[in-house]
């Protein structure tokens, strides 16, 4: 039922074109849902992370989560838990795991996997409704994941 093909090829490409030390989406190593190693070796930028979390074009995390710190960006969803204090509740490694592939931390989670490229049912080409083509990549890039993790770590009560 699940479709693997295309995604694997693309992963190869991303790994080649971006960063030598970057961990490919298919090579991320999870321990109890957490990812200990940075995906890039370059520390995340919380300012960029904040933008990714709020932007509809990037993470769009607030489609599902409310975050008080992002009150300047309108319309926060109520599908997932509020993220205030996420930096107290979770370690950096756990946050990296949750953002990369929440299904490793929370079984069958509604939360999309932001750094994964295989195992989807009818993957599409972004929001066109057409089938995925060879431009298919993860929802966020490796450094964007690191930026989001850096931002979430600042969310302390």
């Amino acid at each position, binding site marked *: 039922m699940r479709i693997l093909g295309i995604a694997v090829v693309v992963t190869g490409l991303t790994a080649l074109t971006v960063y030598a030390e970057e961990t490919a989406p298919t090579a991320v190593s999870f321990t109890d849902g957490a990812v200990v190693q940075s995906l890039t070796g370059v520390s995340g930028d919380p300012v960029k992370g904040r933008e990714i979390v709020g932007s*509809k074009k990037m993470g*769009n995390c*607030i*489609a*599902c989560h*409310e975050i008080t710190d992002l009150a300047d960006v*309108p*319309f*926060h*969803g*109520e*599908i997932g*838990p*509020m993220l205030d204090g996420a930096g107290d*509740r979770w370690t950096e490694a756990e946050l990296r795991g949750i953002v990369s592939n929440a299904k490793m931390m929370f079984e069958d989670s*509604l939360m*999309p*996997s932001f750094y994964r490229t295989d195992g*989807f*049912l*009818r*993957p*599409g*080409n*972004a*929001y*066109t*409704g*057409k*089938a*995925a083509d060879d431009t*298919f990549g993860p*929802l966020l890039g490796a450094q964007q994941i690191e930026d989001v993790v850096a931002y979430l770590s600042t969310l302390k009560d």
Partner: protein
Amino acid sequence: MRNLTGALLAGLLSTTFVSADPVDDKLVLNEETTLVTRTAAPAHLSGVLDEVMSGWLFRGTETRAMQTDDFDNPGMIFVDKGEDSWNAVEGTEGKSCASCHGGSEDMAGVRPVYPKFNEAAGEVRTLEMQVNDCRETQMGADKWKYTGGSMANMTALLASVSRGMPVNVAIDGPVQSTWDEGKELYYARTGQLELSCANCHEENFGNMIRADHLSQGQINGFPTYRLKNTKLNSVHARFKGCVRDTRAETYKPGSSEFVALELYVASRGNGLSVEGPSVRN
């Protein structure tokens, strides 16, 4: 811990979002017909939903008000256009819909039972499929585009004459395998976001997803006049939009998959009043 954050969240949101829950309101049409917008869920949903609710209950005050009066409902303009084509002779046989069926009001009771099994053709048919079959076979006229304007006008007319009647599609007998297929599609987590219809419309109705207030995704109100695109929207066009929003490759309007999904989704609304053309944002 997850429950704790959930409770915290609920507390905070009740102050932030005024419209999180469906409203407690009654849909009275033209000050005379009370429509059923909330009722006990059909038996096949036991353990899943207790109550089924029309999408009308999840819309804002002004949007809801537009649907209570035919003069305020922009969808009724398209019903009039549907009435014109009902009476228009087209095709090689020199017939109109009215030649065979009489007045459009005589079609009351048709909308609530579609999609349904057509014995002669041995297939499950949506209302659109039946309309096109009449056009081709009875009238010798061209098929209409499945989600096109002429078709939407006609389905709006056919819905309007059944308003207030309970949706009542069959789910067993010859349609059962189609219904099963539709159910599987409803729960399939598609696309790069891996979201199923159920994730949004069964597990999260009443919740906000960004700026949208999630309903149960019922189709008793179709076709819907949407303020967003100022036209009638057909069931399969809506399905296509929702599947696209999971970053998936969609199915095509009129495809066997969407016919099956329509039957299943319609059956989740068995007992709700036919409302089309409804008004949505």
